[in-house]
């Protein structure tokens, strides 16, 4: 006792003499505290400020990112149409009196559109000027016309008034609200003459900007005004469905076994460590695995949602297992004991009591895992889902792509109108992520029980 006392007093003496050289060693605690108080308060304030600054900075980044995406992407949700009085003359179309389906398909629809444009601007004579004039209408106009004729062949020989989609450049300058009477002030690839045509059409009320339905009903296209996200959306949905159906049951089963039944030994420790490691493996590795195992060995089709789903479920499995185990752990032992006390078997304890109570937590983990999978591109590169897909996939083995890949592909396209499509696709993707996370929050709020 005496030993330690003398030791500590020695220490004290040394400390104070080191901290305040030359000062008397007999200073009381209050004055010591007072001397440093201002500095400690200041440190506290600084620390608070760092925290607030960090939050403000990250919020600012987020706001800048979101506003720039929204400002860029907004125009993609509308598109400009041009009113045309199309004379569906059988001669111009190159059709006989009783055209077959094949003839209808091969008919010269673009010729009709070009003729209409020529009639609208009768002054245009030169070849180059005519070409510029034709460029104002999207090349998808002819397919649209074909669809109309196929639906109702009776319109052949009549004149119909219809709205056809404008070319992406024309749409861009009309949507931008620039002053068309001053062509020099507009940054565009269009010639002054084309801007002149645009002004004439606009002043005559023959252009109209509408909601861009095509964006939600079409697959990918190389013409920006024709490109849509439906194929990618369906692809994402199919892929996530496979992911969910594989990873949810497997992960929950694994979590239940590890949490409720597994003996505590070396083996379960190894399994546990590896699950945690798996959660940290870069996703591209799963892509390579998918290529080697599912495509090269099992010969599943390339670019198919079924393979994408399997690969992504490998990636989400550890996330769901970890979340499910945490949820199961949170169910208090008293529930299990009470069930056992009433004569329930181990299985009944799990299925009737523990699992239902843990479900909200498990589902939250699952949704977060799936939201991660929704945003993933790297592993899909290896299994061929980074592809140009026009046709809407109809099943799990059809060639498909997913939303983030669509964003990637459009960001790399030369046509400028794809910039707004890229941002619009990001908006849709973000929308889905927010929706999924909102569901997770809702589930938690509604069903979670605090113990």
């Amino acid at each position, binding site marked *: 006792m005496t030993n330690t006392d003398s030791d500590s007093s020695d220490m004290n003496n040394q400390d104070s003499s080191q901290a305040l050289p030359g000062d008397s060693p007999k200073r009381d605690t209050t004055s010591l505290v007072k001397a440093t108080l201002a500095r400690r308060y200041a440190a506290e304030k600084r620390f608070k400020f760092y925290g607030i600054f960090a939050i403000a900075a990250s919020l600012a980044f987020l706001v800048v990112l979101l506003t720039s995406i929204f400002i860029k992407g907004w125009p993609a949700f509308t598109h400009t149409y041009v009113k045309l009085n199309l004379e569906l003359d059988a001669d111009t179309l190159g059709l006989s009196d009783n055209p077959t389906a094949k003839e209808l*398909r*091969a008919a010269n629809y673009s010729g009709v559109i070009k003729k209409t444009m020529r009639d609208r601007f009768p002054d245009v004579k030169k070849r180059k000027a005519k070409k510029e004039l034709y460029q104002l209408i999207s*090349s998808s106009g002819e*397919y649209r016309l074909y669809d109309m004729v196929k639906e109702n062949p009776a319109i052949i020989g009549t004149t119909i008034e219809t709205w056809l989609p404008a070319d992406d450049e024309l749409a861009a300058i009309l949507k931008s609200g620039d002053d068309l009477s001053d062509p020099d002030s507009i*940054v*565009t*690839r269009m010639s002054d003459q084309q801007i002149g045509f645009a002004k004439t059409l606009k002043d005559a009320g023959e252009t109209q900007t509408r909601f861009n339905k095509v964006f939600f009903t079409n*697959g990918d*296209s*190389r*013409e920006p005004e024709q490109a849509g996200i439906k194929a990618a959306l369906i692809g994402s949905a199919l892929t996530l469905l*496979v992911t969910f*159906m*594989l990873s949810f*049951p497997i992960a929950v089963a694994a979590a239940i076994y590890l949490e409720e039944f597994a003996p505590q030994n070396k083996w379960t420790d190894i399994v546990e460590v590896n699950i945690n490691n798996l959660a940290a493996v870069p996703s591209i590795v799963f892509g390579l695995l998918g290529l080697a195992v599912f*495509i090269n060995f*099992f*010969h*599943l*089709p*390339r*670019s*198919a949602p*079924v393979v994408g789903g399997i690969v992504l479920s490998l990636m989400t499995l550890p996330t769901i297992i970890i979340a499910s185990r945490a949820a199961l752990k949170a169910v208090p032992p008293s529930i299990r004991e009470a069930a056992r006390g009433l004569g329930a078997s181990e*299985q*009944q304890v799990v*299925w009737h009591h523990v699992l239902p109570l843990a479900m909200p937590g498990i589902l939250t983990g699952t949704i977060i895992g799936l939201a991660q999978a929704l945003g993933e591109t790297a592993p899909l590169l290896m299994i*061929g889902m*980074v*592809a*140009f*897909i*026009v*046709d809407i996939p109809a*099943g*799990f*083995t059809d*060639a498909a792509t997913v939303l983030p890949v669509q964003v990637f*592909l459009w*960001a*790399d*396209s*030369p*046509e*400028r109108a794809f*910039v707004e499509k890229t941002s619009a696709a990001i908006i849709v993707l973000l929308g889905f992520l927010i929706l999924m996370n909102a569901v997770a929050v809702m589930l938690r709020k509604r069903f979670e029980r605090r113990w």
Partner: protein
Amino acid sequence: MLTKKGKNKPALLIGAALVTVGLSTQAMARDYISIVGSSTVYPFATVVAERFGKVTDFKTPKIEATGSGGGLKLFCSGIGIDTPDITNSSRRIKSSEFEMCQSNGVTNIVEVLIGYDGIAIANSVEAEQFEMSTQDLFLALAAEVPNPDGSATLVENPYKLWSDINDALPSRRIEVMGPPPTSGTRDAFVELAMEGGCDTFDFIKEMKSSDSDTHKRVCHTMREDGAYVEAGENDNLIVQKLEANPDALGIFGFSFLEQNSDKVQSSVIDGFEADFDSIADGDYAISRPLYFYVKAQHAGTVPGIEEYLAEFTSEGAFGEDGYLADKGMIPLDEEERDEVSNAVSELQALEL
């Protein structure tokens, strides 16, 4: 117990169904064309594919951008519906790749030359246009250059300003943004522009036969002291950066120059600007041929291959005024086009 069983069954059934779906499809034939390969050809091939899907009864082909090398590897991996039917390439097939194809049973390959792609050196329209030679470009961008005192030795690149290289050039810092080494555009730029400029020096040119390793190192190595900036694979990004920085030059594909002609202008290289005519005539030095290769053994098994070839080699597509030219591909001349369409209609097998 009963409820538990009832709950479990659908999940099991669905899982079993999934497995069967997956395994059964490989036995079925593929009803669409599968295309892989170069990301340079991708924007052109996709236009043809889309049109093909619309005007015929066939499904739209699926096109993956895997890069030329990756595409040929997949293409040559064998015969059968789980291998691609066509691969796009921004260079000719190498003899090693051809042999790999042969040894894997891909013995009947049809080569289709579709056109040319230019690589543009451009800057913002707000700055003055550059006029230079491939030699100037080499001196500005190579890691090692001939000694400025005129002796036949190599020194580390000393040039900081454009005017250091050539008095006619502006006295501005050398700053060129271009693609990273993983990009095919970079390969082509190095081979055509850098090597072209490199070989204007006689003593380096002689090395090609005497010491080809050094020749390759000197001609193909870009400097890494900040004058050449690797700006990523995305050409749109380079265009945006040029717009923001009028002092810099950028290297990217011709179709991006075409689409952004209101923002960036091509530099004049060896007297010619990158435009349609100069690339088609071969006057503009930095341009490369674009190909695709077809597995003729798949024609007849996978529906639509011959029709896709016909569409691609039709005058409306790869012709002078075809829609591929509208997208920025430089068409072949008439004679070459005739030759290609004849070879294609007969499915002439490639021999190396």
